[in-house]
Structures are given as structure tokens and as C-alpha cells.
């Protein structure tokens, strides 16, 4: 009976370890190949710092996962909450647009609709639309 319990504990370890490795590879491969971080580095002309950015993503992923799984409590701080929300928002904003870019949404629509001149307005419309949709989502509590 006890031997069985220990064997199952070992099995849990194996499952946990391997699912962690695969999830990390998949999720971070997704983030990197969407080019969010290389876009950010390019826009800010800090391409020489990519190694630092990689470290930071790794750190963010590790800390975020520990936080999620173990549900640490931090002190109450509206400011920290605001900062977290703002930067998480920036990141997700870049991310969703990067997905749209990878899936070739823009070139296809622009070509179909012969809309070359409208590109800046399309981008502005997308940004405002996503922001408004986001607000509605939270205000109505969906």
C-alpha cells in the first residue's frame, strides 16, 4: 500500500515536470514567434538589449506561474494593481495585434477592399474598437 503511494507520488512528479516543460515551450514559443518582444525592441531602438529582455520574460513567466499556482498574497496596493493592469494591457494589446499580423488579416482585407489609403484609419479603428470592446466586456461583467 505504502509502496503504491510512493510510486504514485513519483508519477505526479513526472507528470508535473513534463507538463511544465511542454507548456513553457509552447507558450513562450508562441510569444516569441509572434514577435511581440522583437517589435518592442525594434520600436524603442534597443535591439542590443534582447538578451536582457529574454531573461525578463523568463523571469516573468516563472514568477507569474508561481504566483498563480501558490496564490501568494501581497499587501493591498491600488497603485501596484494599476501598474500591473496597465503593462499587462500593453502586452496583450501588442499580442493581439501580432496575432492578427501573423494571420495576414491586414494584407488580405486591404487587398480585397482595395483600401491601401485607409490603412492608418483601419489601425486606429482597430485600436479604438478593441479598447471599447474591452470596456464593455468589463462594465457589463461578461
Amino acid at each position: 500500500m505504502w509502496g503504491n503511494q510512493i510510486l504514485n507520488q513519483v508519477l505526479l512528479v513526472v507528470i508535473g515536470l513534463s507538463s511544465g516543460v511542454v507548456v513553457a515551450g509552447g507558450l513562450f514559443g508562441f510569444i516569441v514567434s509572434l514577435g511581440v518582444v522583437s517589435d518592442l525592441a525594434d520600436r524603442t531602438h534597443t535591439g542590443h538589449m534582447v538578451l536582457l529582455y529574454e531573461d525578463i520574460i523568463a523571469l516573468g513567466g516563472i514568477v507569474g506561474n508561481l504566483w498563480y499556482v501558490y496564490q501568494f498574497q501581497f499587501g493591498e496596493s491600488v497603485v501596484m494593481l494599476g501598474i500591473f493592469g496597465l503593462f499587462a494591457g500593453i502586452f496583450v494589446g501588442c499580442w493581439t495585434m501580432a496575432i492578427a499580423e501573423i494571420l495576414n488579416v491586414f494584407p488580405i482585407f486591404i487587398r480585397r477592399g482595395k483600401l491601401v489609403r485607409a490603412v492608418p484609419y483601419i489601425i486606429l479603428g482597430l485600436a479604438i474598437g478593441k479598447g471599447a470592446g474591452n470596456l464593455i466586456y468589463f462594465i457589463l461583467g461578461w
Partner: protein
Amino acid sequence: MSVANETLYIKGEQSVEVQTRDVRLGDLVAMECGQQNIVSKLKTLKILKMPEKGQHRFVISVLKIIECIHKEYPNLEIQNLGSPDFIVTYEARGKKNKFLEGCKIVLVVITTFIGAAFAIMTFNNDSGITTLFDQIYEALMGSPKEGFSILELSYSIGIIVGILVFFNHFGKKKFSVDPTPIEVEMRLYEKDIQTTLIENYSRKGQELDVGKSDSKSGSSGGDRS
């Protein structure tokens, strides 16, 4: 000077940044020739002059460069081993603001840190990791899970190992000699930008090429003297 039967090999990068307004051939391409004096003379050959105002980026066809060389040495045979088009960007020296750059780096660091944390949490939430952990635990141990088990710990360790193996380094310590994924992505991105720039310029007819008059080409920065 007799240069018959001499071959000049030129090789240039697709994207060149210059710090002086007078762009010379030596800034754009590396050259090799049997007669060294040809190379040293051609190095200082003026290709174009950046204007005081207006655009500071030009796309030059290698044909234009060959034309400039042929004006000096009409019989010289030229072999291009590098890019057929060059992007030349003028960036004034000493313009970099260290403080501003530091601020940008801090902003990107905060965004990537919180973003990555947020991304892994949304993933865990979406896939219902907590419920799944309960189910796996109960299936293996026979009793419902109370508190934290070894599964959470090993999953967290697995995440750490996976991320570090994926990015191939932490800090200065690299685990192998390959470039890291973002380095690769960065180069791909730059390459896309360069190709786009060259194609944009050549479609608009703004590339500095042979067989076009400077006044018509829109980019009147070419100095043909």
C-alpha cells in the same frame, strides 16, 4: 591607367548606417582588386550627399554604384558579391540620449515581465490547471487533494526548466552556442523591414538607379559630381 583584364570584387551589406553627409564608396561596400591602388582610390569616390533637410534614407541600386565606378575606370570589370540594393541611412553622431534609452529599456523590461507573468496566468486559467491538478491527484492518489501537493511544485519546476531551455540562456550564461530565439526573430524582423524598404522605394521609382534622371527620381540627394 590600364585596368583592362582587372576585376574588382565588391561586397556590401543590405543596410548601411553612415555618420557623415558625404557618402563614399568605402562606406557602402568592401572591395578587393588585383591592383591595390584602384581600391584605395575608389574608397573615397563620392556616391551621394545627404541633404541638410528632408529624408535621410536612400535606397541605391548596385548598378548606380557600378556606373559611378565605370566613370573612373571605364574598362574595369566589376563583380558584385553582395546585396543588389543598399539602404543607406544617415544618423547624426552623438544624437543618442542615454537617459531616454534607459527609460525605454525600463519600460520594455516592465512590459515583458508583467506581460509574461500575465500570459502564463491566462494560460493556466484558460486551461483550468487548478481543476486538472485536482483530477490528476485524485486519479493517482485515490483521495481528494488538500492544500498543495508535489504536483504544483513539480509543475512549477517544469515551467522554469522549459523556459530556460527554450530561451537557451539565463543572464550571460548561455547553454549552447546557438543564437537565442528572440535574436533570431529580431534578425528576421530586420530583414523583412529591409526588403519592404527596398521594394517600396523601387515601386515608387525613388531608388537611385541607372537610366533615371535625378530630378525625376524624387530623391534629389544624389551628387553626381
